[in-house]
């Protein structure tokens, strides 16, 4: 039996970890994900978790230990944020190239500098090309649900890639919400056992992991990774469908909110979607044909399906909670415009950079955006890229 509870995002994720009970957890504290290893420690102290818990001396070591454990044929998990995530950057590439399905809970926080502990997406977006599957969560429930689906996706024989479940620092990680927890047996049944074919601790078949990949082989290894990432989209959809049948909570690659006849659309990632949906409701009440798309899966990027969802719009706002400093906007802006171009969908689009370092995003912010979209839909020129919610003086 599932049960209702009031939990923060960190608590929800920690409960998912407890229910999954991975063989190895390696973590180093960093705000705002610190609570996750704290819960792990207390679950262990209470006998509710059997995992080996490695309290490493840095995030570089937590991801390295997770890589070692996963190569040894067991499930390994870790959690991090911001600078800790950036310290892992080198290793993220190694883990994906070694095809180790490590699952990591990311609590998104701005990267330094200047140092800042609040939310934006500069950490995980900064490693978007590291070969990890990236799932983003709007709230604690989604963070929990994404964690339960994570191993099924990452360890799928068609995939075998690491996966990160992202939630917004403080907004989601520390906000307490009503959520539904599945019971332990249901989770165990859904997640299942992990038995890789090849691993370091097979006495009959010793293996080598992480060889020197010389030029005649390196490119084929990269090609293997990208093919796995291409296959991941269908696996995510399949696992999400099965999860929906089990729990009644359905997830796709992205969520479309009041998009059926929408003319003005906003595309965003994470907790801002909740605020955006409120704005959409208010505008709808005033007769404005507003809609919102919330992207759940950023890697693999569901380009064709997303473009098709955005096709009917007269104006689109692409919201990035980080800046790529390309002088062209943020990563979501670049990916979406590329997807539109590739599929021949022409929608006037503005790429907004917003909410950096915990800058508040309110219903009024979305109203301002929709007001601008209305003008663009009426023929006003669209500024390709701009900041919103920033002091101009």
């Amino acid at each position, binding site marked *: 039996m599932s049960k209702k509870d009031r939990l923060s995002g960190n608590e929800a994720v920690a409960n998912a970890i407890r229910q999954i009970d991975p*063989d*190895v957890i*390696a973590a180093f504290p960093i705000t705002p994900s610190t609570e996750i290893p704290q819960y792990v420690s207390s679950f262990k102290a209470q006998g509710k978790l*059997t*995992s*080996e818990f*490695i*309290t*490493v*001396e*840095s995030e*570089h*070591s*937590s991801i*390295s*230990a*997770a*890589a*070692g*454990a*996963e*190569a*040894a*044929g*067991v499930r*390994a998990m870790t959690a991090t944020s911001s600078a800790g995530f950036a310290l892992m950057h*080198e*290793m993220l590439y*190694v883990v994906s190239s*070694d095809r180790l399905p490590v699952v990591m809970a990311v609590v998104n926080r701005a990267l330094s500098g200047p140092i800042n502990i609040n939310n934006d997406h500069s950490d995980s977006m900064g490693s978007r090309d590291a070969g990890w599957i990236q799932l983003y969560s709007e709230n604690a429930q989604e963070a929990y649900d994404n964690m339960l689906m994570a191993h099924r996706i990452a360890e799928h024989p068609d995939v075998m890639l690491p996966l990160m479940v992202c939630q917004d620092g403080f907004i989601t990680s520390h906000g307490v919400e009503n959520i539904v927890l599945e019971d332990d047996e249901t989770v165990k049944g859904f997640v299942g056992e992990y038995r890789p074919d090849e691993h*370091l*601790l*097979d*006495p009959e078949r*010793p*293996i*080598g*992991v*992480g*060889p*020197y*990949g*010389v030029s005649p*082989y390196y490119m084929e290894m990269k090609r293997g990774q990208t093919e796995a990432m291409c296959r991941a989209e269908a696996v995510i959809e399949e696992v999400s469908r099965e999860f929906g049948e089990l729990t009644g909570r359905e997830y796709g690659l992205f969520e479309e909110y009041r998009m059926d006849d929408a003319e003005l659309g906003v595309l965003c990632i994470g907790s801002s979607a909740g605020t955006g949906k409120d704005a959409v409701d208010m505008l709808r009440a005033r007769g404005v044909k507003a809609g919102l798309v919330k992207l759940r899966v950023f890697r693999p990027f569901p380009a064709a399906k997303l473009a098709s969802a955005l096709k009917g719009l007269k104006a689109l706002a692409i919201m990035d909670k980080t800046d790529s400093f390309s002088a062209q906007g943020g990563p979501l802006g670049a990916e979406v415009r590329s997807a539109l171009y590739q599929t021949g969908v022409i929608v006037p689009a503005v790429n907004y950079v917003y909410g950096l370092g915990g800058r508040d995003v309110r219903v009024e912010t979305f109203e301002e955006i929709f007001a601008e979209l209305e003008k663009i839909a009426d023929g006003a020129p669209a500024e390709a890229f701009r900041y919103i919610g920033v002091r101009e003086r």
Partner: protein
Amino acid sequence: MAYNLKEWSDRPERFVAGHRMCAGCGSPITMRAVLRAVHPEDHAVVTCATSCLEVASVTYPYSSWTDSYIHTAFENSAATCSGVEAAYRALKKKGKIEGEYKFITFGGDGGTYDIGFQSLSGAMERGTDMVYVCYDNEAYMNTGIQRSSSTPKYADTTTTAVGPENDGKQQYKKDLTKIMAAHHIPYVAQTTFITNLRDLHTKAERAIYTKGPAFLNVMSPCPRGWRYEASQIGEICKAAVETCVWPLFEVIRGEWILNYRPGYKQPVEEYLRMQGRFKHLFTPENEHLIAEIQEDVDARWEELLELCEK
């Protein structure tokens, strides 16, 4: 049982021929000797830091390692190994694995004294049941002989170039073995290739079969970086020990034991003269530099004697 080199040499090789290391290099000697100490019925997982050894022994699709092997990066081999070891413990606890596994990590001085130092210190402090073996060749040889914190004072390297304005590396070598002893782990030892490898073989066995973390520092000369003829490696190691530049000792649960005391402590020139990296010291105007090295070697030796005689 008395030490018998033949018996040791007859054990099956766990680091086999076909690798691309240079002739006269100390690294493969260290690998072969350390792995001979793993009992034939036991399994091992080797973790390796990025190094000459790594690129030359596991060039895809080949491998010189008969045991399972993992390399992930340069600065994290100890952390990687601690993950493998934790996985083993998890599987043991659940009754999912049989037999005995040993966890051995190899890194050069770059991956150990410098970039991997934090990861090593962490894994040792956490009590990981593993042996970390540093094959110390006193510079970053894989990238082309750049100085490390293990490079001895006045050595010529490609980043401590010798010229009219510079006499080589300006700093002393870091005493890593002592730092590892300060971690109060059950076993720490320093060795190199002398006495028919007895010292290395027995210390490797002790390190591998000590429960908990162990650290082994093996002086493993590099013919390219130190500039000697391949055949001279044994003589160089012997000179390092006879001059007390590289004393043989071990620290067993806090007890310092000197394994060899030269009857006649040779002057440091005997060791320096054999290597091209110190060639610039052998001019009349640089005599004082050798004297300075001698003074440092003497001071460290006295310090060690004191620790061992306590």
